[in-house]
């Protein structure tokens, strides 16, 4: 009857710690309602893969040989081989995004670009901590504030830290309403936050909405070819939304596809949350650096708006610049709330939404640019 105790005798303290971490993620998902669709599967997966001799992982059984585990298989097929899951998720995200507020005020595109600075600043800080350039870039991309991009880039760059990176990316996305106000207050005055912006949107025709995803794909593909899988799938989803003749597909992409991939992505990522690779000093560093990336992004966006204000007659509220991160729509809601706190008549939502969706485009371009540039620098 010894076999009944095999599992118990093989438990390590690291595995028990991973159960606690998994339980913590489940707690945050259920009780605090923080990104529950991702954190709950990741938390449960963290428990699943850290049970001794877990059948969800590949293992060698005496007398039988190698047996495939479902979570390892999902990871190999869904993420490792061609980054299928994060890319398919982008079709759904593209189908969900309305680029109207951005097209009505295209100068907001610039804030999306500026707010990606946090990615690169964090990469430099990560190299100062001794990470290799590929690992540092995978950590920096947490600043894209976009879970699928973080997973994809860290996988393409063969980072050893995909688990902690995914946990950090999704946790901090959920914590945007806490992180951004603090970062914004660090670099703006109340007078800055009170700046009112008039909303005079340009009329956006259906033709423009249709041409936009195609144009973005071609431009991004020509200038940064490595970004084409990310940008292309995002824009493909958006074209399905805007074309008007694929309503059923658009709804499927927005709901069924996103739900299905999200359901599997969280639990699949847990393949990289095995105790022996997760419980390390680097994991704690990555969590810290991920937070830094979000703070740098926010500050860079706000400071860029302040810089533009030196040359503009109609001033831009720096908080709109801070909305240039990809965490959509949380960031725009945060900016709207902060605008109203500073001045009860200061409605910034539409400007913030424009900058926010711009951040979505810029973050996937940043991911592609990093994938394209890293090999030449190593």
């Amino acid at each position, binding site marked *: 009857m010894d076999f009944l105790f095999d599992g118990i005798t093989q438990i390590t303290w690291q595995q028990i710690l991973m159960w606690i971490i998994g339980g913590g993620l489940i707690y945050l998902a259920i009780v605090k309602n923080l990104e529950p669709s991702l954190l709950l599967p990741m938390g449960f997966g963290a428990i699943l893969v850290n049970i001794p001799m877990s059948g969800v992982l590949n293992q060698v059984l005496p007398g039988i040989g190698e047996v495939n585990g479902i979570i390892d298989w999902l990871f190999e097929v869904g993420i490792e081989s061609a980054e299928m899951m994060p890319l398919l998720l982008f079709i759904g995200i593209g189908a969900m995004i309305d680029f109207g507020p951005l097209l009505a005020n295209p100068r907001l595109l*610039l804030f999306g670009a500026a707010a990606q600075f946090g990615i690169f600043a964090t990469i430099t800080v990560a190299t100062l901590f001794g990470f290799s350039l590929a690992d540092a870039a995978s950590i920096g991309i947490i600043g894209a504030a976009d879970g699928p991009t973080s997973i994809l880039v860290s996988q393409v760059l063969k980072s050893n830290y995909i688990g902690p990176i995914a946990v950090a990316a999704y946790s901090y996305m959920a914590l945007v309403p806490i992180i951004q106000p603090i970062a914004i207050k660090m670099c703006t005055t109340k007078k800055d936050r009170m700046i009112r912006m008039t909303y005079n949107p340009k009329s956006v025709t259906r033709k423009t909405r249709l041409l936009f995803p195609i144009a*973005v794909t071609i431009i991004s593909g020509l200038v940064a070819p490595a970004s084409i899988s990310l940008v292309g799938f995002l824009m493909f989803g958006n074209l399905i939304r805007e074309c008007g003749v694929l309503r059923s597909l658009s709804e499927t992409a927005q709901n069924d596809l996103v739900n299905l991939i999200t359901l599997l992505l969280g639990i699949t990522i847990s393949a990289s949350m095995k105790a022996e690779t997760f419980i390390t000093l680097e994991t704690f560093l990555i969590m810290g650096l991920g937070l830094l990336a979000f703070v740098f992004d926010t500050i860079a966006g706000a400071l860029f708006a302040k810089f533009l204000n030196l040359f503009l007659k109609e001033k831009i509220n720096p908080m709109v610049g801070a909305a240039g991160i990809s965490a959509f729509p949380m960031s725009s809601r945060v900016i709207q709330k902060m605008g109203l706190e500073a001045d009860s008549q200061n409605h910034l939502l539409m400007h913030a939404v424009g900058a926010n969706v711009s951040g979505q485009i810029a973050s996937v371009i940043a991911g592609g640019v990093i994938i394209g540039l890293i090999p030449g620098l190593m």
Partner: protein
Amino acid sequence: MNNINVINSLKLMGMGMSAIFVVIIVIYLVVNLMLKLTSRKIK
């Protein structure tokens, strides 16, 4: 700490931010062009 990695990360920062801004500015110009062209047709 590896100095070469730090220097390369700074190079990556320069090239990466330039690339992102180039792509975004080109998209900005194309969007403005599209808005102009399509609004003319409406008139």
